[in-house]
């Protein structure tokens, strides 16, 4: 048991402060690595009727059926034709698993806590409700997503 605790802590340490960054339109977003299960290429998505427009459908990820949404549509931006760079980031938190379609995945960046600040209180955009913090990598700004809220939102 003690051994286990130690392992988890060390595990947490190695991925602490690490963010996967991706692009939506002109904005850069980041999600904590701990929530990212994997990144997959676009594949055929089975449509589900009577769903909100931003929900694309279900994909088969090695036998697991996972819901997929389009982040552009979710954040109220214009949809874009999927191209070579388009991919799906599979996020998981507790027993929620969800794939989100993003324009392009950029890199994993280390953003230490002192480079992270709360977002300005003025409402930036509709996406604001899912942006928890703002991180800076060099002179670039990354909008850090509140994954738990994003996934638990029905």
């Amino acid at each position: 048991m003690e051994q286990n605790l130690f392992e988890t802590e060390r595990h947490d340490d190695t991925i602490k402060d690490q963010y996967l960054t991706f692009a939506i339109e002109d904005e850069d977003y980041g999600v904590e690595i701990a929530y990212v299960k994997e990144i997959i290429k676009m594949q055929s998505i089975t449509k589900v009727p009577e769903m909100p427009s931003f929900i694309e459908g279900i994909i088969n990820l090695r036998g697991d059926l996972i819901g997929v949404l389009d982040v552009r549509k979710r954040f109220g931006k214009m949809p874009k034709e999927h191209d070579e760079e388009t991919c799906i980031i599979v996020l998981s938190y507790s027993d929620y698993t969800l794939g989100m379609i993003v324009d392009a995945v950029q890199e994993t960046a280390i953003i230490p806590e002192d480079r992270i600040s709360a977002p300005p209180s003025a409402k930036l955009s509709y996406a604001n409700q899912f942006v928890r913090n703002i991180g800076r990598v060099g002179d670039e700004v990354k909008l850090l997503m509140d994954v738990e809220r994003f996934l638990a939102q029905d």
Partner: protein
Amino acid sequence: MSDFDRESMLEMFIFEMTQLVDQLESTIVQSESEYNIDQINEIFRIMHTIKGSSAMMMFDNIAGVGHSIEDLFYYLREENPKNLDYKRLSDHVLSGADFVKEELAKIQNGEKADGDGTELSKTIDKFLQQIKGKEAPAAAPAKASAPAPAATPAPASTPAAPPPVVELPISSTAGDYMHKYKLKIHFQDGCEMENIRAYTLVHNLQEIASDITHVPHDVIDEETIPIIRRDGFYAEFSSANDYHFIHSHLSSTVYLRELTLEEVEGDIVTPVVADAPVVQTTVEAPPVTAPEDISPIAPPPTEAAIDAAQKKGTASHMISVNVSKLDALLNLMGELVISEAMVTQNSELDGLQLESFNKETRQLRKIISNLQQTVMGMRMVPLSATFFRMHRIVRDMCRQLDKDVQLDIIGEETEVDKNIIEHIADPIMHIIRNSIDHGIELKEERAKTDKSSKARVLLEAKNAGGDVLIIIKDDGRGINTEKVLKKAKANGLTSKPDSEYTDREIQQFIFLPGFSTNEQVTAYSGRGVGMDVVSSNLEIVGGTALVDSVPGEGTTFTLKIPLTLAIIEGMSVLVAGAQYTIPIVHIIKSFKAQQENLFTDPSGNEMITERGEIFNIVRLHEFFNIDGAVTDVCEGTLIMLENGEHVVCLLVDDLIGQQQAVVKSMPKYFRKVRGLSGCTLLGNGDISLIIDVAGFFDK
């Protein structure tokens, strides 16, 4: 004992005890007004087993209570007193059963079973004394010759004249009684490190014994090895456990050649070199009676014992398996079904002439479907245990609320998947509570009606297609729709003018969270939780609840639950390029429509006449708002679906074929869609959505 052993033993223990307690409750509730000799024997036997098992697992508090009740029934069995207060007797036994249940729950949750049963034991003992007191004058002459029963408080003179049979090694009574033992051990020749083995032995003993002394004393010292080899290893100790327990504990020592365990009376004397022949693995009978003799008067093999032996005979044909193993098996089964489809419908086979291959795959499919049925059958459990548990609830509530209710059970042999049973026990209980608390009138009120004074609650289960219906029907006052509507309005649950609500719609309000019309909160209901547990629990297993009530005549709850969750036989259909799966149990037939049979009613509903009957047409693409589907009814295919007594014709583009579907739930992120119950993986890895036929009807 290693942790592993104890874990698996605990599991068995809990399983066994739960069954026993259930059995006990149903026996008592069935025979509350008067116990016949069979029932007394039965209860005696159950309590005896409970006591024995829990003493073995060292739950002394449970064993203590078990012992008291056992004493009580021992007396009843032997003396068969008349004019007992059976109601009080039942109360005592049931509170004992509750105690055991509580402790079991603690053990199951990994807590310590620390409940104090002494108070309960005392009450029960007192009750026994009372019965005896009442009986004494009448039975005195007869009893004079018989030896006093076990539980009679020992008169002052008893200790002076101990009966030939000495103190019993029952752990339950042994809370403070320590048995003293002498032990001699020889290890096998050439096993080496005898001193360390002796040390380990002593270490193991410390878990169950105290005051351990041993010769040679300093076993860590290697010089003792030759001594142990030559003379063996002696130990003396005290323990609260009985002879058999210690003996089996020690027998597991490795490299054991001889083991001599002896129980000694009084103080331990200095080691006597055992001159008794020790060439034996089991010892000569210890100077105590075996724990089977629960009373000093060794009873002849009773009916109970014979019965138990017979039961053992049938039990050997059953094994109990952990549900998680069955779940794993079922998952594998699902994988197998999918991969069979992947192989036999592989696209690389398209266009090939494969006569023998097709023949073999048919055989394979047959075997797999047999296998699947067997696996599913293993998980099917009759509802009887769940149903009979309700007797207890009805009984308790009747006592508390002073109502007279008879519970009738029909169809308890109906089988349902194990996973589903877990989710419906609570809903059934809540509905029954609700019926008795709210539905059944108080005695005075009921007397004013022309109903019989004994109220009835009917609990019925039956198969209906791929579903099981559970019907709970009472003959109480029915649901007061006015009151419900008022309450619903007050809670902001209504969405249209009052006059537009039908009685049926109003009645469904009671399943919403936070709803209770009973002004007074009682011990059983009124807090508004409960009925929404019904609907939420049923939702998990894909079931539905319906209520139908006639004021003054009673209320009927109908729970519709699927037989099984896991694998369904489905028909794949195509709509706008996407596949959907329809459970085959709902399909009557499929056919092509003829233009002359189609017509539209004034409000735009499409209908078709088929063999003289008229059916509504539902277009799947319209129902789900899908673009690109076949819109000409004659061009597509109609599938006639039934759900209960309702029938519709569903328009799809085309049929693909019959297929077994492993049901998977929709991703959690998605909201529930009417008309869809889940999704499934097809042989080629594609996903198909499973149609919930009921969705087309409850508009």
